[in-house]
């Protein structure tokens, strides 16, 4: 039953893709349907009209789009159902599909871990399919055929779902690559701009490299076991060295997909150029699939983890978290910024995962479960609010045709609903209390603070430092999203587009984000709901759960023990409401003191203009000064001067260009290396036939000599 709904999710998403292909085949459909109606019903009249109404030129595209997204949404619903069901029943379901190699059919396994990620994907897909129809409505069919978009969206979703179902290396890789390739086509969807093409190429290239290293990782496991089914791989017993090699390969492969520093560069390139609902899926969901892969590989297949791996994850995670948020801080393109902040959140998740590994290896399964909980919880939250933010960015782009933060402003008055939803997203991503982001971060801190139980001095001093780095990350994230919300929605409009923007009319485009925002808040208040589910996962995977501290009841969240740490969001909420309510009521009681609107104080210079406001680069200037060495900053100021002795400045031009360190350090050298190598190799083909004869002559002599 559970498995059936899991399959349904896959098949429905697949079907939605295929349905999209009918975009240009409406005439065929028309004739077919007429034929069918004539055959089946005797009163063909009104049915005929009804059919024609949907299939004729005017309605057909909208109708089809709707149908496609409805199918997608259904698949999301089924995914959620399947995930919840398997999580609650804690069951493990295995199956085989008669595809693949003759001696290796596709093995399917649906357990709590897969179920949890199924849940994540399902929610994301539901939101997107609510949002989609309104968003793609404005695409020009000729330039950007919906057939392509719909097809590859369907394939993409089904690929992600299949990855979670896979239970043998071969099937896993197929699903994995299906996911990558489909999303590549989606990134390249608007391929007129060269930037998009470049991004798509980079993305596919890195996906390929990552996939290769994953294959190699599986290969290492497989060479110590018989067969490629995950059961066989689990059974394989590796020496520490080989296990570590496999781990490193897997980390490289999955990390490349998840976007940890320094292999993150495809993210900020690919996410901005994809259509927004796609980048929402990619950033909110696909990165989680990569995380799933890593967890499956390390905790499940490799089995016994080593604390050194944990340290590696911890350090990489810390780097990604800090680097991600610092780079995000400097972006002016909203979606680039969000992409970098994904790097940050993935970093946090990896940190906590590393902690959990360390505890696991040091024989504290309960604390490992705590870390695991924090990691998965944060993954879940990130899926929610990052989806929300990307969809919001999509709305903004849809209404203002602007993604440059410096060109926006003052939208809170023109787009109140959107701004509210976006605010919720910003608050939860900058981990403020009462929202879900805070809970997972709190859990992360709790995990880090359990360091006392460890004996190893290095770890005991390393972990608190990383905890402080986590704190720094959180604070920077808050700063970053203050910037985002403040510059986009507050103040005055910085461009005409944003000046005459208005709220979206399409209900769905608001409903999708609203769903996510509601979840953000709900989970923030009642985190227990998810925590119980994750507990089931860790009990199945790690064989350990949190100390069940039910004495405090559902109101309270006390992961370790009540007297060590506790947090009760509902009480906090109530307290906040009371306090705010009281002073609100008290201060508003006097009718004389009703608000009066007046001009903003402009230091007496008559007339504030939007250009007087702080811009993005101005806002982040102090941090840019402080952390100068993190970026490659290229800052130029030109002054146009005139008059006597060029004294009076007529205009000032300011240029700021900020680049990632990893490009010059890591990627350009590789590219140059390959090119020069191929240049060298090219020399053997001189074009002179006598040289060629010489080659075969020499080869012949060489081989004869070798033989005898």
């Amino acid at each position: 039953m559970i498995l059936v709904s899991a399959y349904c999710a896959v098949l429905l998403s697949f079907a939605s893709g295929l349905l999209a292909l009918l975009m240009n085949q409406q005439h065929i459909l028309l004739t077919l349907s007429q034929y069918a109606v004539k055959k089946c019903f005797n009163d063909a009249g009104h049915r005929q009209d009804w059919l024609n109404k949907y299939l004729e030129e005017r309605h057909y595209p909208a109708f089809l789009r709707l149908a496609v997204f409805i199918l997608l949404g259904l698949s999301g619903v089924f995914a959620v159902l399947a995930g919840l069901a398997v999580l609650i029943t804690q069951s493990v379901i295995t199956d085989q599909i008669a595809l693949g190699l003759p001696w290796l059919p596709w093995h399917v396994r649906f357990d709590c871990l897969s179920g949890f990620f199924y849940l994540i994907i399902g929610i994301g897909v539901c939101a997107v399919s609510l949002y989609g129809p309104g968003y793609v409505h404005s695409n020009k069919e000729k330039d950007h055929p919906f057939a392509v978009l719909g097809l590859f969206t369907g394939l993409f979703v089904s690929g992600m779902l299949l990855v979670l179902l896979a239970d043998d290396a071969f099937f896993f890789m197929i699903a994995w690559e299906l996911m990558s390739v489909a999303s590549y086509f989606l990134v390249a969807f608007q391929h007129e701009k060269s930037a998009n093409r470049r991004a798509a190429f980079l993305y596919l290239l890195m996906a390929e490299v990552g996939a290769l290293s994953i294959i190699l990782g599986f290969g290492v496991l497989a060479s110590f076991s018989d067969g490629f089914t995950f059961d066989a791989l689990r059974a394989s017993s590796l020496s520490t060295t080989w296990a570590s090699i496999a781990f490193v390969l897997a980390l490289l492969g999955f990390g490349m997909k998840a976007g940890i520093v320094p292999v993150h560069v495809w993210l900020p390139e690919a996410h901005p150029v994809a259509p927004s609902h796609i980048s929402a899926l990619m950033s909110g969901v696909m990165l989680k699939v990569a995380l799933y892969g890593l967890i499956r590989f390390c905790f499940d297949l490799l089995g016994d983890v080593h604390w050194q791996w944990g340290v590696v994850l911890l350090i990489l995670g810390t780097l990604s978290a800090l680097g991600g948020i610092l780079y995000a801080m400097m972006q002016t393109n909203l979606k680039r910024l969000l992409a970098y902040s994904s790097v940050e959140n993935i970093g946090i998740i990896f940190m906590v995962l590393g902690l959990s590994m360390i505890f696991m290896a040091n024989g504290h399964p309960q604390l490992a479960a705590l870390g695991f909980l924090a990691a998965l919880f944060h993954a879940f939250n990130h899926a929610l609010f990052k989806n929300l933010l990307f969809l919001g960015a999509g709305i903004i782009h849809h209404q203002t045709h602007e993604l440059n933060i410096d060109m926006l402003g003052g939208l809170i008055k023109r787009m109140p609903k959107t701004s509210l939803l976006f605010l919720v997203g910003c608050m939860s991503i900058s981990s403020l209390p009462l929202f879900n982001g805070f809970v997972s971060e709190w859990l992360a801190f709790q995990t880090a603070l359990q360091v006392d139980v460890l004996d190893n001095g290095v770890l005991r001093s390393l972990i608190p430092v990383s905890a402080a780095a986590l704190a720094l990350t959180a604070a920077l994230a808050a700063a970053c999203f203050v910037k985002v919300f403040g510059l986009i929605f507050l103040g005055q409009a910085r461009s005409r587009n944003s000046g005459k923007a208005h709220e979206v009319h399409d209900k769905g485009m608001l409903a999708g984000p609203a769903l996510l925002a509601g979840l953000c808040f709900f989970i923030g208040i009642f985190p227990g709901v998810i925590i119980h589910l994750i507990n089931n996962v860790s009990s199945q995977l790690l064989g350990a759960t949190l100390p069940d501290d039910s004495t405090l009841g559902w109101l309270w969240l006390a992961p370790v023990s009540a007297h060590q740490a506790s947090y009760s969001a509902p009480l906090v909420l109530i307290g906040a409401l009371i306090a705010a309510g009281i002073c609100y009521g008290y201060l508003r009681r006097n009718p004389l003191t009703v608000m009066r609107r007046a001009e903003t104080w402009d230091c007496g210079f008559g007339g504030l203009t939007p250009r007087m406001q702080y811009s993005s680069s101005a806002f982040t200037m102090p941090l840019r000064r402080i952390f100068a060495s993190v970026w490659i900053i290229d800052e130029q100021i030109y002054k146009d001067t005139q008059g006597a002795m060029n004294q009076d400045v007529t205009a000032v031009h300011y240029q700021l260009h900020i680049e990632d360190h990893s490009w010059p350090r890591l990627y350009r050298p590789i590219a140059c290396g390959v090119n020069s190598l191929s240049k060298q190799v090219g020399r053997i083909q001189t074009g002179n036939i006598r040289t060629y004869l010489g080659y075969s002559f020499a080869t012949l002599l060489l081989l004869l000599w070798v033989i005898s």
Partner: protein
Amino acid sequence: MIAVYLVLLIPLIGIVFFALGGHKADTGKINVRFNAICLLATIWLAINVLNQGTILSSDKAFLIDPFNVYLIVLTAFVGLTTSIFSAPYMAHEKEIGKLTDKRLRLYYSMYQGFMLAMYLVLTTNNMGVMWVAMEAATLATVMLVSLYRTPESIEAAWKYFILCGVGIAQALFGTILLYYAAVQIGDVENSLLWSVLYENASKLNPDILEIAFVFMLIGYGTKIGLVPLHNWLPDAHSEGPTPMSAVLSGLLLNDALYAVVRNKMLVDGSTHNNVAGYLMMGFGLLSFLVGALFLHRQKDIKRLFSYSSIEHMGMMTFAFGIGGPLATFAALLHMTVHSLTKSAIFVTVGHASQLAGTQSMDKIRGLIKTQPKVGWGLLIGTLAIAGFPPFGVFTSEFLVLLATMHSYPWLAPLLLLGIGIAFAGLFRHVQPMVYGEKPEGQLPVKANLWPVIIHLGLVLWLGLAIPGFLANWFSQATLLISGSTPL
């Protein structure tokens, strides 16, 4: 048994027929019919073999066993689809005046001649005749390479002719040595027959066979396009008419490899050290890596894909060299999917270069906008050949990789490196061609893209699931070659 004669007879008639009337308007369609009949005959043959196992003709002239019968069917199939593609292509070439009636006649009759040679290579039981047929294939195609009579095409054809001629001569010396070794054990008249040789391979003198194998490898390896003997290949592919490139890549290379593998079987039977295997692995890996690197610096679209052929042939040679059931199975699968995919790609490439009016890749842009079918075909075909699932190439490469991990783990990283480099090299050129805005004045051309759809569909099918009869077919062949089966 009649099927075999039929398969050989039809192209023979074809040669004569087209030599006389190859310039007529509907020759293309007739050519298609010829190949279709051939395909039917081969299928009939295949069914026979599947039912009653290996067939040895009464006069011992022909031997059909699971290994070659599926190659025969593949050859007929690719021949058919390529002829479907070549009909409108050649018509277009004639319209724009690149070809005259005489050359058209030559083209079609040599097309059949080439097919004949291929069938002969595959069906014959006599190593000497195999050599003769292989040489005949060269002679048949060399005129086609220079069909356009441009200086480049002449040069390419000359190189092709001389290099392959000299190479194949080495193969003959190898054959003579083989014969010499066989004569030692008596039965002079039949001692070049594969069936005889294979039966008492263990009696043959290992030293002679090793030397013989070296000559064979150099000789047929030149035709496979193993680095550093590959130099003729990109020239010949890029200068000839595109259908020719399709069959060269899809068939000729396969059959040369087939010949090498046949000889490897003999050598392994006689010398029980894996010398032949090591040689093939070395050559294979070298060609794989070098081919991958060459991809990066191409300007001509057909050269690009001919280098990718070199790369893939390298991988197959490597896999056959590893030996063992898994690798052999993978190699056979890779042979199939590669020839299907590559010929499909060449179809799209042909149309792309026709509508752009040039083969230089800087001029070909925005195919998806100009002629979406061609663009998507090229893009998806490239994805398939680059080894992305769920296409069959991925399956075979995956298996090769795992076989390598099992036997020679330290070679696996090299293999992966090669795949990565090759992918980058292909895509950095292909993506700009398919995507982007359409250039001025490039109009769609009349194209029949069913071959592409069919081929890629088959490759996709093979990637998702290998149908039972094919699997058991492969495993029979694997059993024949490597002595055991992965199933």
